[in-house]
């Protein structure tokens, strides 16, 4: 219940935070802490130092930018849910209103969730579907990581040693685009056993483009490219959706546990892909 001892610091600037991170290879950044602190309490993690980002003003806040939106890394789920600038991203709001529970949503941050890369977190699926960009800063300067390149593997992202996520950019949604996120939650933890986010663009009665993000099922979040291809060009009817998702889980690296074994989880990928697409199109 009590973590191992560590030092604690609250840098006021990103430069200060980066310097601290560079100075101690066993230091960790602290955002909302709702993934990190529980693992420290169970002593599954024992960083020597926590660098709390809460006092760095530039990491906070949501703003509209170029038709899209920029979400500061330290924006909490609750703040995102309430943000006027994010209202159009229905899939994001679907996720930020059901992640964890009220208290998790009050403390957990969007940047923290992305950096952790938990395979069962909700947001990765949404960010994949929305085609987000992750903005990071490190000793080598700033860079933007396309979401498709971000999730590398189990609890592993494209973040380099010493890099800090500063914000997430969401591109403007193309005309005729609607989005949704649905989750099949673990009955105990509430994490996604399967979570699917869909962004579907309808044009002239056809699906002209779509992005489908999957989380929970495998070692890291991924796009369902086969489903995207099958759905694109279809009329978006229930029959065409059913056909597009029929083998959605095939070929994926799927994890199993006591709540959902591999075969079951694979089958649920199809079911929840269908539900996400139906929900997205229903919002069109």
């Amino acid at each position, binding site marked *: 219940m009590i973590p191992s001892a560590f030092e604690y610091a609250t840098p006021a600037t990103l430069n200060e935070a980066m310097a601290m991170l560079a100075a101690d290879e066993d230091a960790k950044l602290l955002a909302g802490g709702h993934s990190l602190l529980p693992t420290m309490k169970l*002593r599954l993690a024992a960083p020597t130092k926590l660098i709390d980002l809460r006092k760095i003003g530039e990491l906070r806040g949501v703003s509209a930018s170029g038709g899209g939106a920029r979400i500061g890394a330290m924006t909490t789920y609750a703040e995102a849910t309430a943000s006027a600038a994010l209202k159009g991203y229905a899939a994001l709001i679907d996720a930020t209103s059901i992640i964890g529970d009220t208290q998790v949503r009050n403390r957990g941050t969007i940047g923290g969730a992305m950096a952790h890369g938990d395979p069962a977190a909700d947001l990765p699926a949404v960010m994949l579907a929305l085609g987000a960009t992750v903005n990071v800063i490190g000793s080598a300067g700033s860079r933007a990581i396309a979401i498709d390149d971000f999730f590398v593997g189990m609890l592993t992202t494209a973040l380099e040693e010493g890099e800090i996520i500063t914000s997430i950019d969401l591109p403007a949604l193309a005309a005729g685009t609607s989005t949704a996120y649905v989750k099949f939650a673990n009955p*105990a*933890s509430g994490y996604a056993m399967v979570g699917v986010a869909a962004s579907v663009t309808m044009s002239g009665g056809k699906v002209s483009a779509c992005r489908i993000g999957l989380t929970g099922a495998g070692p890291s979040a991924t796009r369902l490219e086969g489903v995207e291809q099958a759905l694109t060009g279809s009329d978006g009817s229930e029959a065409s959706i059913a056909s597009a998702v029929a083998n959605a889980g095939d070929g994926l690296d799927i994890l199993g*546990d*006591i*709540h959902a074994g591999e075969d079951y989880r694979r089958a649920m990928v199809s079911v929840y892909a269908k539900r996400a697409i139906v929900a997205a199109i229903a919002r069109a």
Partner: protein
Amino acid sequence: MTTETMFGRALKRREDPRLITGRGQYVDDIQIPGVQRIFFLRSPYAHAMITSIDTSAAEAHPGVMKVYTGKDLPAVPVPCGVNLPDSNQKTPPYFMIATDRVRHTGEIVAAVVASDIGTARDAAEKIVVEYDPLPVVVDAEKSVMDGAPQLYDGIDNNITFDWKLGGGDIDAAFAGAEVVIKQRLVNQRLIPNAMEPRAVAGRYDSATGDLTLWDTDQNPHIIRLLICMLTGIAENKLRVIAPDVGGGFGSKIFLYAEQLLVTTITKDLATPVKWVETRSENFQATTHGRDHVSYVEMAFMKSGKLCGLKVKTYANMGAFMTAFAPLVPTFLYGTLLSGVYDLPALRVETIGVLTNTMAVDAYRGAGRPEASYLLERVMDIAADELNIDPAEIRRMNFIKGEFPHMAVTGMNYDSGDYEGNLDKALAQFGYADWRAKQAEAKAKGRYLGIGLSCYIEACGIAPSKMVGMMGGGVGLWESGTIRVHPTGKVTAYTGAHSHGQGHETTFAQLISDTLGVPYDNVEIVHGDTNQVQFGMGTYGSRSLAVGGTALLKSAQKLVEKGKKIAAHLLEANAADIEYKDGSFSVKGSPDRSKAFGEVVLMAYLAHNYPADLEPGFEEQTFFDPTNFTFPEGTYMAIVEVDPETGTVTPLNFYCMDDCGNVLNPLIAEGQVHGGVAQGIGQALYENAVYDENGQLISGSMMDYAVPKITQLPSYTTEFAPVPSPSNPMGVKGIGEAGTIGSTAAIANAVMDALSSMNIRHIDLPLTSQNVWNAIQAAK
């Protein structure tokens, strides 16, 4: 002065003001100056030899007072209080701290005492324990097979007992039957998860030799008795206080290693010490419940008439046996297997099996939920196979006629109206309407299910003589003392213990009525061995039927004493005195009276007082019931199954309970709600899973689904009392009914929803995955 009748009133609880303002006093809330904290190092292996333990680095860690291993402490056993008759019971030896061998994950191998818990835990990480792993067995059926890993020398095939019960001519019953339903049933392992984990604090006064233990338990006197028997501490030197206790559900009845260790360590160090269990420890090292695999054969005539029942159950007892363990899958289970039915013949065998898992003992309902689930599930399978409505096959087989009724199990049912209860439930809860809605939903492709369960349980535990015949090492009477102070204010002392049940309210209600004093004048004391005479504690839905009756009888004794005093003051014959509304008066001459307060005061002054009467106004009763009570009822569950995912959503849950007369409907209803929630938890969500290496996979609330508020339905509760003749209030008990009756109702509803898919049965828990797998298999 007129006092309102309190019996039957839905009074809000007097416990609540402290609990809703954060002023409850649970063990960890009690401020003990100078208290040192204990961290227990536990085995990560399920079965291993301990080859060495090196504590030197831990002892050198700053802030550490002492580190204990098994070699530093006397070999004090963790006791099992039951020796089943005629069952070849072999009780495994299990000690408070492992020395040479561990047999389940979470077994204590060392204790670190330090200034704070963080330091204690830091130091514990420096203890080096070398283990030599042994083969592991976690499954009861595998554990009894030849060649399975053996846990203890001298307990062959890990069989700790083989218990049998029979009644009627079972061979004739099966020979004459037309249909035999055979089914293997799993009643999965559960983890009680009281919201307050266990906690023990001890303080030893080396000057007086007095030792105080604050312990979160359900029965402080039994805890004291066992500690004293095992450690040699005198009972008059050990005070056990169970203050506010955050739920028990059976798991806080037993004496565990930790209470013995805290007692031993505080005395050894002459320093106050405290251990507070983490939830992770609670999962690993607080008793679990259920874990049966049963082979059932139930014989019927084609008409649906029940002929006989054969059950063979493998009960997984875990790696050792705590206080009640052997009773749970035997006398608390087998004796209820005829349910509310006129069953002509029965044969039950329970094989108690040791495995490399945490000990299994009483968990809410304790044996009776297992019995009720088995019987009610198989009744539904039979109804399905014989093409009879589930309500009708039950009606056809109910016990009807006169009570008491001697069941084939040997249980003497006190009272009940099983058919009347079912009829009320079906009518009030709209069984026919739900069938119509189900058909409508089906036409739209939705799968609604309606499930019935008619339960019975044995409560008011228990007549001491019967407990003795069952091999129990205690009596299960209860005590109640009422002390009326000279001013007329009342303090009542009960051996029952409230950890959520509301005794401070309900017991004051019944005393107020009987003693004719205002409710607000009555205080209830419980949970402190230095205040309360003796007590057996709270479990088995016994508090009101046994503990309440003890108080009632003490109040009646006081009224009788008051009549003698009043008769003396009024110069009348005691037989001519009647007591009503706080006034003793001469029959037929209401103006010749003495108020309660005058009588009580005179009992203390004793100036003008009967020569043959002792002064003072206090009475004590040790009430030993002559029979169990037998609550019964009908539960109806409505569920919807999502055929694509297998997910079951409970939509409604209806309860028609006969718990005898209802003292406080608000509290009784709350007990039903909570019980039902735990029964639904078993039906749909909860599952304790060990892997083949004996690691508890469902070892935290991240993996073990304690039901959330979003996972449970709203409940409708009604009472249909048939008073019990077993006690003067006619009460039966309601603490466990909800759990006992609800699991089968949900399971039956799920199978009902899937009836068109040719699915006969799915084992518990009916998780999305298990239901989906069954749907796929049936395709």
